Structure formats: C-alpha cells, structure tokens
C-alpha cells in the first residue's frame, strides 16, 4: 500500500503563506499579519501605525477623549452614517433610473419595484432613508457638542468653519435625495424648499433656474438632482471630510480636557 503524503501542519501552511514576497509586500514590517500580535506597548503602537487607519488616528489619544460623554461619538457616528449611506446608496443605484417624463415615470416605478421584487430592496431603502435623517440629526448634535465644549477655539477655528460647510453639504445631500422617489411627498416638499431659494432678492430666478433646470420642478430637475445627489455633492463632501479629519490631528487631536 502506497504511503499517503502527510498533510502539512498548520504552522507549515502559515509559514509558506506568510513567508514570501507577495505577503510581505502587502503587510508592512511589524504588521500583526506578518509576525503575530502580542499585547505589548510596541505591538499596540504598531497596530495603529501599520494600518491604513493611521490616516485618521494617531498612535495615542488623550485619555479624556475616550470618555463617552466627551464626544458622544457624534463626529465618528456622522462619518459612519455617511459611509453606510454610500454603501446602501450604491445598492439603490443598481435599481433606479432618474427618468420622469410624462407617461414614462420610470423613477417612481423603480421605487415601487424595489420594495416589491428586489431582494432586500425595501430594507436597504429604509436603511438609506432613516440613515439620512439620522445623519442630519447626528451632525446637528455634533455641532452642538463642539460648541458647548468650546472646541472651536484656537487653533480649531478653521475646522469649525469646515464643519459648517459640512453641515450645509449634509443638508444639501439629504435634500437632493428627497426628490428622487418622485412621489407627491418628494415633489411638493422639494417645491416648498426650492421656493425659498427662489426668493433670494438678487439672483433668485437664476438660482432656481440652475437648481431646477427650468422654471419649475420637472424631469430635468430629477436628472440634475440625481447627478448632484449620487456624484457631485458626495464628492465635495469627501473632500471637506478629508480636510476636517486632517485638521483635527494637525490642531493637536481632540480638544480639552475642559
């Protein structure tokens, strides 16, 4: 009877997977995927340092910033919701066409079909909708907590200004998304909202013409707002988020303690 080859042991496999140029090119020296993790100060530092999260977090943070009642995690949660909305939004894009010509209201049809016949379609739509409301709310609360901590004081003045811009962008993201289902609620809520912009004394008509692609909300508006909602405003938001996060670190990390 021929002898069967012995299966390689776990450590053999691990060794041959990790001990080659490709693995080593992916994981930097000191990465826990390269040499394991022991709970030492050195490995704790390396876990933060040899990680893409190093773009966001320093190796060490101020102890008081960890207390839940300092940030209430509100900035982080705003960002989490933004990421969640990006993911669910990409899912929704697969099933949506921004068309609303008379008699060919495909956008609205798509919304109906989404809940009726797309697996998890309704759930993802709900997540996107409630997540959007939650994000607007979280950003408001984040602003309030930053104010009450005086966390906008030097050197963080400019980051507050970036924050205000992020607040406006968040509102605009939510508002442009509001129109996309193309139901009565969407059409009229957005009509009320854009009428306000149209009241601006000097450029009122031009502003609403540019925003609406016409004198009133129609199929052109839907296409325009779709592009704003899925591409343009998220792009601008990401740019400002990058500045916001970069400044938090350059301004010396989280503010305080009080």
């Amino acid at each position, binding site marked *: 009877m021929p002898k069967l080859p012995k299966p390689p042991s776990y450590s053999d496999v691990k060794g041959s997977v990790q001990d080659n140029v490709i693995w080593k090119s992916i994981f930097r020296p000191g990465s826990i995927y390269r040499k394991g993790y022991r709970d030492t100060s050195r490995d*704790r530092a390396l*876990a*933060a340092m040899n*990680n893409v999260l190093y773009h966001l977090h*320093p*190796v*060490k*943070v*101020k*102890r*008081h*910033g*960890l207390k839940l009642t300092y940030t209430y*995690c509100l900035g*982080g949660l705003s960002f*989490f*919701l933004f990421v*969640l909305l990006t993911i669910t939004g990409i899912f929704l894009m697969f099933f949506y066409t921004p068309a609303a010509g008379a008699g060919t209201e495909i956008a*609205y049809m798509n*919304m109906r079909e989404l*809940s009726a016949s797309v697996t998890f379609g*309704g*759930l993802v739509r*709900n*997540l*996107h*909708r*409630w*997540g959007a409301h*939650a994000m607007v709310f979280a950003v*408001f609360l984040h602003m309030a907590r930053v*104010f*009450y901590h*005086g966390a906008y*004081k030097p050197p*963080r*003045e*400019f980051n507050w*200004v970036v924050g205000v811009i992020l607040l*406006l962008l968040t*509102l605009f993201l939510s*508002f442009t998304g*509001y129109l996309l289902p*193309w*139901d*009565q*609620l969407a*059409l*009229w*809520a*957005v009509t*009320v*909202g854009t009428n*306000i912009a149209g*009241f*601006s*004394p000097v450029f009122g008509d031009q502003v609403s013409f540019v925003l609406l692609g016409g004198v009133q*909300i129609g199929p052109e508006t839907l296409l325009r707002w779709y592009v704003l909602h899925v591409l343009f405003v998220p792009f601008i938001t990401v740019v400002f988020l990058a500045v916001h996060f970069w400044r938090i670190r350059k301004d010396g990390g989280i*503010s305080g303690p*009080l």
Partner: protein
Amino acid sequence: MSDEVQIDQEVYDRLIGEGKSERIARAKAKAASVRKQKIEEGQSLGPKPAEEASKALEEFRSSRGGGGGVATKTAAPADGGSGGRLTPEERAQRVAASLGNGGDSGSVGVPASSDHTHRLLALVPPAGIQQVQSKQMDKVYTWPHLLLVEFVALLAVGSLLLIVSFFLDAPLGSLANPNEVPAINKAPWYFMGLQELLAYFHPAVAGITIVGATVALLMALPYADKNPSARPENRKFAAMAFTFFLAFWGILTMIGSFLRGAGYEWVWPWVQGLGFTL
C-alpha cells in the same frame, strides 16, 4: 577659526540705524566682517569649485593628523570645559562614525565616494530644533482603547438603524403630480424652521436674510468669540446665547412639523391628526 569673530562696527551701526533688531544687526555685521577678512586673505567667496573643495578637505585631514585613523565609532569627546559643545574636529569624527566609514575617508559634508548622491548639511542637537513647552498629556493607545469604543458605537447605531428599518417602511406616496397640490404641503423637517418663518415674514427676509445671517454668524463665531477659556463656568454667556439660538430653531421646527396642518393652518395633532411625514 578658534579666535572670536569680530563684528563689523560700521555695518552694525548702519543696521541699527535702519531699525533692525540688535540680534539681526549683530549677525549681519559678523558675516560682513568674515567676508571682508576672506577677501583680504585672497580667498574667493561663495561655494568652492569641486577641486578646491577636495583640496581644502585634504588640508583639513592632514591638519587632523593624517587620515583620521584615530576615530572610533564610539568616540566620546572629552568636552569638559566647552559646555557640551563639540569642536569642529570632534564633530567631524562623529559625522564620519555615524556615516559608518569609521572616519577613514574623513568625509565631512563632502561625498566620500562618487556613489554618494547627497551630503550631510549639518548635525543639529535635538534641543536646537524646537523647544516644546506643553506638558505631557495623559494618553492611551488608540488600539485597543479608542478603536474598541468606536466599534461598539458603530455596532449600537448600526443595529438600531437596522431594527428601525426592519419594522418601519420609508414613505412612498402616489406618483408626483405637478397639478395637484397636496393639502398638507411641507418641506423636509430640517427646513421646517425656515418654512415656519415664512409664515411670519416676507420671503426675502425669512428665506434669505435670516438664513444668510445664520450661516454667516455660525462661520464667524470662532473668530468673534475672543474668550480663551473653554471651561463651562467661564462661558456662561456663550452657552446661554447658543442655547437660545438652538431653542429658537428647535421651537420653530417643532411648530412647523407638528402644529401645522392642511393649508399650513395651526392644528392640534391630538385633534386633527399628525400632519408630518419623514
């Protein structure tokens, strides 16, 4: 080199006369006197051409006692009286040692061989770069402490959102119809404060002036608030003002959202029902 560099009194007086600070005038006057001295000795100013530099290096080496075999990697210069400063020779030895060539080439700021592509400009003691005044803060490692908190927060909010989304469907009304104005006609909730203002003021005031002023005020706030303290007990006025600001918009938003019904008339939600859709 060892003797004190004189300063050029003429240049010094002129610069002081021009209102330059004492420190700058002294530095410039020193430089001027060195330049003058060099010209007197017939040396050329500015960077030396390559051969001249290597000749100067040769001289430097021989003045150090032939080839620098004395250098050791752990050279510990006796710096008894010099107040912690190295003499140029000692510094050169250190540089050589740190470059790993044991001082054999005696290379000081000049490529020892042609495959060096850069040269060392200076060694600066750490204290010379910056003086950090701030106190050491009480800090903890991002991993595991901060990342764990973040992860839990993310799970909590994520699962809350998932549960809500499971039980509560997003609204979807009938097909949009530009010719049929719904009885209850409201903006999204975060604009309800604005819409409520429109019930009281001319649109040019409510829509633009008040909104514009609010955004401008928010952006100007950190520059307007000159109070350096972040402690709550020192910011009573600021806290109160901001609370009024939040309450102003909060109350308007509540009224608009819950107390307005068909035709934007005042209603009581427990009588006429809730005219509010998210």
